[in-house]
Structures are given as structure tokens and as C-alpha cells.
């Protein structure tokens, strides 16, 4: 008899689903069919689905069921459905990079992260929508995508955030249990915060980028978007590790062992008071302040610190602009760049070809100073805490220019630039849902030293063991 699934299974954790699979409460095939039905039915409603992989997923689920029947257990991801941003290549299917000029592109290689999850029995049910070319150097409107603006499951008139828009929507709406995204400067943390999810930007080099579209070789990172820190740790363990196919691979592995993580009392958390008082939009302040208090209540030490002074925005913009123009030189010079959806994206790519080498190298040299300044800062503290975003998700029709200019900025800007700063320094960052403002999710971010993922995830896990923000989900039908 076919299993019937209640709504809860679509919002269950990886461990819960895997335990039920092992206990034979349902088969991987039944589960995959249920998730695929939901993804195929609801994904387009939120502009989240780039490509359904239903048939391939069902065939994979049958193979997993044979393994489970023989009690050949692999990892907690075995039999659990997931989705991947459409910037990861998968042979035999289009990999569009969210952009019209690549709508029919079929690549030969399989992205390393997809291979790694497949080996553990994780079931890929779909490729997920994204902002075209992962946002490129710049874009003006949330609609800068082959599939249209990502619609937030908490309020379809609002944006999901980008560029990993479909990844965040799919997890928030219970269309997949977790998803893979990528971040060059904010593309995992922002949609995670806007959609009420837990997203991890790993240290640069920890997760292979082989088979992932390059936007900026020196900034791109691949990471998970999940409902909880625990799930992020489980996924990271499988996707992290050395890869000879990725020349920037750090050659490090990651084992999710929270029981061996540092005690909370040994952790010093740095913060800037204005991040919780003046900087966020007013409606978001109570949730952010409460999150700060809840983190303090874990028993960590707290220290007021200031972000090192650098022009983070101009640095990250110059580096992305120059590297993206080189990566997409063919697209730009062929004129096909004009097929992109967002005029600012088109202009930004074209202008990137004119960035002088000296400007790029100056930015990269100043970036060395940024890295040193953060090394110095992390001699005093272990973690930085700040709001992931100072605002809730904007309306899909709103210009993203307005987002950055509509509110007066206070004198002390705290860690407002932590997303570009953290990306420039290659630091890991974890965004945790921490409540709501005007009915929309709000998130805080924890940023640590390179390769301190275990500490960040354990802090997130402890925080989530005392709060229930990560268990809330929108009504989706």
C-alpha cells in the first residue's frame, strides 16, 4: 500500500526523515515521489524550479530502496530528497545558470558536490532557479532571472533574495529537505535570512567548486541551505573535502561532531551595539535584540568590537566585476550578453572589461590587508554576531537600489558590511532565523575564523535547541 504523507514530512529534518526510512515507515521511492510531486506542482508557483529531475530521482530512489532493504546504510543523506541551484552542472540536462543565453547549455561534467551527495544516496529531485549568472557584477531588479523573480513563500509579493533564490524557496516551502547554493557575496546568507532558513557559507576552499559556474574565482563558495544548523552540518560533512579538480581546494575535510566542539563558555563573541539598535529597520530590532540576548544566554563571553575600516563594497564590486568580465568575455564580446534580463547586469559585465589591471590588483592587495585585519580581530574574539540583513525581504517590484538608499545610515555602521567583508576574507558565515518583522523572517549571522565551521554550527545548534524559529514554516498550498 502506498504511504500517505502528512504535511510534517515536508518540513522534517534530515535525521528525522532518514530515521523513518531506516525504520521502513515508507520507502525512498514513496518519499521521492511525494517530494517530486510537490516540487513540480508548487515550484513554478514561486518561480523556484529550473528543471524537474523526477524520473531520474525515482530511478535513484529505487536503487536506494534496494540498499535500505539490505540494511546497507550509508549516511544520513541516504534517501533524502534535495535540490541544487541551477549553476551546478549535471550531464544530460540543461544547466542554464539562470540566464537566457545559456538556456540550452548542456555540460559534460558532474559538479563534484552532486557526485558526493549521490554517492551517499542523496536524491536530487530538481535544479533550482537562480538570479542570472549568480547576480554577476550587479543587478537592479529581483526579476533578473530566466525564471522571473524568486517569490518568497512567506509572502509571494516579496522577493526570496538571491542569487540562490530557488534553493531558499524550495527549502522554505518544503519542496526539498535541503538545497545546495553558492555565494560570491551574500547569495547564501541573504536568501536564507529572507526566507527564514539556516544557511552556511563555508570557508573559501573547503567545498569544491568543480562543475559550478564561476562568477569570481577568488570569491565563489558552495554551501547548504537547510532548516537547521544540524542539517547544515550533516550536508557539509558530505560535500566538504579535497578535490583535485578544483585548484583552490583547501585540502581539508569536515566532520560534524558537535560533541567535540568548543564549550560555549570558552567562546568570545564580538558585536557592535549599533547593529542591534540603530542599523536595522525598526520592526526588525526586537527580534534581533532577542536573538543577541539568546546567544548571550548560551554562556558565551561578549566583547564590543569594531569592524576594521575598509571600503568593502567597492573592493568586492571591483573584484567581481573584473573576474566576471574575464569569465564571461565570450558572452560579452559576442553580443549575447544583451539577452540577459537585467540592463544593469548587461552594463556591469560590459564595464568590467574596462577595469584596468592596476585597479583589480590594487583591490586584491587591499584585500590582503582586509584578511590580515580580520586575523588580528580574531585574535581577540572567536565569533562575530550581526544581523544577516538590516531589512526584511523587499517587494519583488522594488528596485534593489532603493533597498540600499531608502533609509538614512547611522554614523556607526557596525558590521553592516559583514557580508562583503566576510567574503573578501574567505570567512565562514552561518545565518540563523531569529524571528519575524511585519510577518517576514529576520536572521542573524555568526562569522568565524577560516575553517571554524564546527564552532559556528554548534553555536547555531545550541541556539536552535532553545528557540523554535527554525521550526516555523509558511502555509504553502
Amino acid at each position, binding site marked *: 500500500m502506498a504511504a500517505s504523507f502528512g504535511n510534517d514530512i515536508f518540513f522534517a529534518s534530515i535525521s528525522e526523515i532518514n530515521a523513518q526510512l531506516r525504520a521502513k515507515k515508507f520507502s525512498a521511492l514513496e518519499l521521492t515521489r511525494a517530494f517530486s510531486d510537490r516540487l513540480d506542482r508548487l515550484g513554478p508557483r514561486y518561480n523556484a524550479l529550473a528543471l524537474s529531475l523526477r524520473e531520474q530521482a525515482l530511478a535513484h530512489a529505487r536503487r536506494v530502496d534496494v540498499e535500505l532493504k539490505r540494511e546497507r546504510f550509508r549516511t544520513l543523506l541516504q534517501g533524502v530528497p534535495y535540490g541544487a541551484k541551477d549553476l551546478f552542472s549535471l550531464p544530460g540536462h540543461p544547466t542554464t545558470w539562470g540566464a537566457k543565453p545559456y538556456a540550452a547549455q548542456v555540460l559534460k561534467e558532474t559538479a563534484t558536490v552532486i557526485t558526493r551527495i549521490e554517492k551517499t544516496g542523496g536524491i536530487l529531485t530538481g535544479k533550482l532557479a537562480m538570479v542570472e549568472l549568480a547576480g554577476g557584477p550587479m543587478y537592479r531588479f529581483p526579476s533578473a532571472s530566466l525564471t522571473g523573480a524568486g517569490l518568497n513563500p512567506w509572502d509571494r509579493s516579496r522577493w526570496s533574495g538571491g542569487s540562490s533564490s530557488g534553493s531558499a524557496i524550495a527549502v522554505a516551502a518544503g519542496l526539498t529537505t535541503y538545497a545546495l547554493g553558492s555565494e560570491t557575496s551574500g547569495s547564501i546568507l541573504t536568501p536564507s535570512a529572507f526566507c527564514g532558513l539556516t544557511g552556511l557559507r563555508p570557508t573559501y*576552499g573547503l567545498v569544491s567548486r568543480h562543475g559550478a559556474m564561476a562568477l569570481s574565482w577568488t570569491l565563489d563558495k558552495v554551501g547548504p541551505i537547510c532548516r537547521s544548523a544540524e542539517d547544515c552540518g550533516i550536508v557539509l560533512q558530505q560535500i566538504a573535502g579535497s578535490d583535485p579538480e578544483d585548484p583552490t581546494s583547501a585540502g581539508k575535510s569536515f566532520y560534524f561532531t558537535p560533541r567535540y566542539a568548543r564549550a560555549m563558555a570558552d567562546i568570545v563573541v564580538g558585536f557592535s551595539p549599533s547593529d542591534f539598535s540603530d542599523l536595522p529597520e525598526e520592526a526588525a530590532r526586537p527580534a534581533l535584540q532577542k536573538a543577541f540576548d539568546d546567544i548571550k544566554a548560551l554562556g558565551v563571553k561578549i566583547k564590543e568590537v569594531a569592524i576594521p575600516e575598509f*571600503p568593502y563594497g*567597492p573592493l568586492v564590486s*571591483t573584484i567581481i566585476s573584473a573576474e566576471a568580465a574575464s569569465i564571461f568575455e565570450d558572452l560579452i564580446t559576442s553580443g549575447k550578453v544583451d539577452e540577459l534580463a537585467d540592463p544593469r547586469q548587461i*552594463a556591469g559585465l560590459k564595464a568590467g572589461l574596462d577595469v584596468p589591471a592596476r*585597479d583589480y590588483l590594487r583591490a*586584491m592587495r587591499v584585500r590582503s*590587508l582586509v584578511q590580515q585585519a580580520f586575523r588580528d580581530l580574531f585574535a581577540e574574539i572567536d565569533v562575530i554576531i550581526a544581523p544577516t540583513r538590516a531589512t526584511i525581504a523587499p517587494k519583488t517590484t522594488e528596485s534593489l537600489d532603493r533597498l540600499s538608499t531608502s533609509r538614512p545610515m547611522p554614523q556607526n555602521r557596525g558590521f553592516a558590511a559583514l557580508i562583503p567583508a566576510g567574503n573578501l576574507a574567505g570567512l565562514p558565515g552561518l545565518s540563523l532565523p531569529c524571528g519575524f518583522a511585519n510577518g517576514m523572517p529576520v536572521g542573524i549571522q555568526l562569522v568565524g575564523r577560516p575553517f571554524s565551521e564546527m564552532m559556528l554550527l554548534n553555536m547555531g545548534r545550541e541556539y536552535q535547541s532553545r528557540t523554535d524559529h527554525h521550526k516555523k514554516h509558511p502555509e504553502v498550498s
Partner: protein
Amino acid sequence: MSRLLTRRSLASLVAAAAAAQTPQPPQPPPTNDEELAAARAAAKAWNEQIARTELPRAVEPAAHFKA
């Protein structure tokens, strides 16, 4: 202290309020050339901001990330 409201000042207040309520005509979207010029100007402005950071001669471009 009370203020005398003259007919002239009342008229100017009403006119100002009406002007404030009148929707501004929508700005035409920038042309492609304007977009490109703006993108180039932005890149130039970024570089000017970056150039204000004191950069010792010995500093090399970022390449490695250490734990």
C-alpha cells in the same frame, strides 16, 4: 503666538499640498548607453575609494586563506 493665515498664504499651502500629492511622472528607464556610462562611472568611483587606503609596497595580492 498665533499666526495670521492670509488668503495668499492659504493658497500657497493648498498649492504645495496639491503638488505633493501629484504623482511625479515616471522617469523613463535609462538607455543602454546611459546604463553603461553609469556602470563605468561606478567602477571609477570604487577605485577612487579603494585608492584612499594606504597600501604598503610590500603588500601582495590576496591569494591564500589560512586557518
